[in-house]
């Protein structure tokens, strides 16, 4: 599942991959150019195979979002209107696992364009509920969902929907991930901690504030 490169990836706190990236995110946020306000950290988020609960938890930061808005710029997300992912983003946040070709495409696009990639929530971090289909063959899963349990006009959708992958994978199973934030969903406090640390130019250690299944 993992390439050797991702398999040998070290803990984010000690990781070499995360540090330069978060520094650059911090630099771009803090480097004051004379006269003009510091550039905000740009953030993009996407919702892959998940339930949107992690994005809901993001919104649960409530009034803290207003303070965050001074430091971050949401350039692409289900939570904002813009429909295209910019070419260069400081922090990419992915919710959900890699279950179909669209998820795979999105993850690769995010990895390419985001300096720092964050896996948000258990589906992104370990596959979680979407990955519970993995012990079964994909054909059997589709049969079960679209034929066995359907009484009226059973049919398998093929048009306008991305093809399902045989095995559901966590994000780091297909692209390199810098920060892992487990939890189902991670509490708003945990997300706030991670974002605050990144904005301050530090590498967060999410194990202090969240866990699998939190």
């Amino acid at each position, binding site marked *: *599942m*993992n390439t050797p490169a*991702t*398999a*040998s*990836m070290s*803990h*984010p*706190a000690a990781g070499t991959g995360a540090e330069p990236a978060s520094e650059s995110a911090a630099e771009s946020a803090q480097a004051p150019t004379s006269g003009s306000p510091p550039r905000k950290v740009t953030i993009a988020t996407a919702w892959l195979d998940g339930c949107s609960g992690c994005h809901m938890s993001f919104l649960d930061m409530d009034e803290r979002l207003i303070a965050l808005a001074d430091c971050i710029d949401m350039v692409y997300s289900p939570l904002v209107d813009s429909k295209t992912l910019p070419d260069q983003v400081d922090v990419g946040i992915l919710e959900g696992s890699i279950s179909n070709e669209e998820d795979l495409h999105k993850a690769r696009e995010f990895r390419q364009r985001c300096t720092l990639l964050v*896996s948000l929530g*258990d589906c992104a*971090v*370990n*596959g*979680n*509920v979407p*990955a*519970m289909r*993995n*012990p*079964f063959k994909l054909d059997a899963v589709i049969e079960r969902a679209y034929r066995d349990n359907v009484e009226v006009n059973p049919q398998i959708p093929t048009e306008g929907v991305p093809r399902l992958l045989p*095995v559901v994978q*966590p994000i*780091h*199973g297909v692209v390199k*991930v810098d920060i*892992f*934030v*487990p939890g*189902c969903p991670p509490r708003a406090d945990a997300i706030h901690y991670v974002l605050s640390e990144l904005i301050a130019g530090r590498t967060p*250690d*999410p*194990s202090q504030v969240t*866990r*699998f*299944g939190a």
Partner: protein
Amino acid sequence: MPLPAPQANVRVVTLKIDGLDLSAREDETLIEVCRENKIPIPSLCWMEGLSIVGACRLCMVEVSGSNRLVAACSTRVAEGMEVQTNTEQLQRYRRTLVELLFAERNHVCSVCVSNGHCELQWLAQTCGVDHVRMPYRNAGYEVDSSHEMFRVDHNRCVLCTRCVRVCDEIEGAHTWDVMGRGSDCKVITDLARPWGDSSTCTSCGKCVQVCPTGALVKQGTSVGEMVKDQQFLPILARRRHLR
């Protein structure tokens, strides 16, 4: 190894753990001394009151003068021993061990009845396991709900064998045992018959209470509802010892 029989005249030895000068009875193990002195060592198969199998290897420590790591649960204290419990090497090994447990079976914490009360989940957090670097095996294991009070979900079993030992050593029923090798290894009731058909099970529930994960649980519990009570074990074990 069996639990040591209480001795009439026990000597006291002195040793150093993480730089702390400590004294201990000579029949104590390293993990017991660490627990008494609030030195945290992760463990999974070890449990106060049960015999020692040294299977999970999470409690491994470094002992000066020895070039291999030893399990704190199965190593007796000795005079002048110098022990390190939390070096970078040990942290790395423990993290890997916990990750392998997660990769082997299907521990989906978010939908587990033991969510929030699970020793494996807690170990992952304390060992800094925020993701699993190995590929998941994705092999499905069976769930046996045939017992009217309890359920076994092999997807969540870590093969610590606490259930096997408590059933044999404390309850005296020996309903549980271990069958198969490698990834086929699993705990079984009687001769791999459904738990509900067992003629030896007394339905005492001790196995459920000592199980560190959501593998052995009460029927009728929902996500996060399975809270385990392990208070009975040291009390029963001590009484058995004194007889």
